[in-house]
């Protein structure tokens, strides 16, 4: 199934399997989950949240190090 992913300036379309979680998506994209807040269809969600067909996921980096 396809989902829309917004990460900073990037707008991506990702193919993910059924029963895929935010945590698995972040791992696939190589984004450390402890550095971001994720919104699913404009609502903040936890990393165990399941992704559904057509979801829009916004990944907001909140930790930059330093």
């Amino acid at each position, binding site marked *: 199934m396809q989902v829309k992913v917004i990460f900073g300036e990037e707008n991506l379309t990702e193919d993910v399997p059924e029963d895929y979680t935010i945590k698995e998506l972040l791992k696939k994209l190589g984004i450390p989950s*402890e*550095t971001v807040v994720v919104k699913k269809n404009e609502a*903040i969600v936890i990393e165990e949240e399941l992704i559904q067909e057509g979801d829009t996921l916004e990944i907001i980096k909140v930790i930059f190090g330093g």
Partner: protein
Amino acid sequence: MNSCSKCGNQQIIIRKKHSGQSLCQECFIESINEKVLKDTRKYKLLEKGDKVLVALSGGKDSVVALHILNSLREKNIIDMVAVTIDEGIKGYREEGIEIAATNAKSLGIEHRVMSFKEYFGRTLDEMMGQDGTGHGDTRRQGDTEPRHACTYCGVFRRWILNRVAQEEGATKIATGHNLDDETQSILMNYLEGNINNLIRIGPKSESRDERFTVKIKPLREIPEKEIGLYAIAADLNVHLAGCPYAGESFRREIGGFIKELSRDHPTIMYSTLRGFDKIKPILKKELTPKGNTGECRRCGEPAAGELCKACSFLEGWE
């Protein structure tokens, strides 16, 4: 458990690994507000009538500190002024200043912007030779390697904040230091054997010298990730960007190491802080340097030697 531990709402935004607690958006915001204000009372960070200078970079930590402390200002318990330091980092600092100003204005808090250029005659970029002039070898006599930007930035920022606090008649300087920052500082100073700096770590500075305005850290027990989550959940306008000079710092290495450990040991930052806070009074009693602080012959600020740290850097470049 997929519902809020406090109100039962099914839409949770955090599941805290260290406590097992799950919270919805509203209860999470409320819990952070309560925790920060509780710590403020517990560590006696503020007294009625204090004028608090908030060091406001525009980043998530200082903006969250500003908004939470503002609840005490609204109750006429404290007065506040916000100060943003323009270090002069091209392409990075400008947006932070704008966001800091917007936040202060939205709350009706007086806001001042003070720059390195104005006080010290050069920007951080110029100090580090990033301005195209080719200047900026930060080596001084005896140094084998150029110093890191964070060394200068920290010293000069503290100098300006202390000076402006005196000008403003501020009784406290509040910074946005979080749990990650504090555990990094504990580990860094211990590993480097920097005991003088180690014994100064805490929720509230305790200098015997009245010329140093007391510094407080209201967010000291809140993990950085939760401050980021709070900023997004409360829809605050924050500057989300990384300082270009932070890349190769020792702090960043230590920060990465602790984050890595925290994945399998979610309580590690809390236990590091708690353990340190228990041994600190003993360390402080045994290891506080004797002798009184004098006065910098150049700027008049408190100094351990003939010159304060900021002026010793400045003289080294002249």
